[in-house]
């Protein structure tokens, strides 16, 4: 059952990722990106990483995609700005580089890179990985966690101050 689900979610992920890249309309590719993130969350659940799967839904499919759609609709960036003869060349080079990288990855996998047996086995964590992450995050990594929260707070206040300052200067000028 699980391998079939994995293949299904994987095929959905690859198809939606291709649609993100290939579709002309930016809003449509953003919506395909939402579907890609949701299928990736399904794959995380199949890999027994429940916490990462839920965070994927909440953060990526929720927050980041709302940000993308808001920027697209606010700035009205619906279409590609492409004209000129060098676009075809650029496209060809882009797909060729991607194909080369895929070939390189295939060669690495054929040689068994990073897919061989594991040397050291980590101790088993009891009670699901959300509980394990919480236990570690609030005990051993408490200080970096708090530093990160302070960093985010400073970034938020800084963004508000900067944008307010610019708007105030424009109003003074006019």
């Amino acid at each position: 059952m699980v391998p079939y689900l994995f293949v299904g979610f994987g095929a959905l992920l690859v198809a939606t990722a291709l649609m993100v890249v290939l579709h002309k309309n930016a809003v449509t590719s953003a919506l395909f990106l939402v579907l890609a993130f949701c299928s990736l969350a399904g794959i995380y659940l199949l890999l027994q990483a429940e916490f990462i799967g839920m965070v994927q839904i909440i953060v990526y499919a929720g927050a980041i995609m709302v940000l993308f759609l808001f920027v697209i609709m606010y700035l009205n960036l619906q279409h590609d700005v492409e004209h000129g003869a060098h676009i075809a060349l650029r496209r060809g080079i882009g797909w060729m580089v991607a194909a080369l990288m895929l070939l390189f990855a295939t060669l690495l996998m054929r040689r068994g890179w990073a897919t061989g047996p594991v040397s050291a086995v980590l101790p088993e964590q009891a009670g699901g990985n959300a509980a394990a992450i919480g236990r570690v995050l609030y005990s051993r990594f408490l200080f970096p966690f708090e530093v990160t929260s302070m960093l985010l707070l400073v970034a938020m206040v800084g963004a508000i101050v900067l944008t307010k300052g610019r708007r105030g200067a424009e109003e003074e000028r006019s």
Partner: protein
Amino acid sequence: VIPIGWTIALSAIVFCIGVAGVLVRRNALVIFMSIELMLNAANLAFVAFAQQLH
């Protein structure tokens, strides 16, 4: 249990699609979305390795 090779292969495919998107598209927003695809492919590889180490 899913073999790690499948997950790594899927991650490589998604990463390559993201690279193609960054190189092919001209729209800045779509380039950002392709970068997000690449970041998610890296996350998938991390989760695969974590599952193997578990």
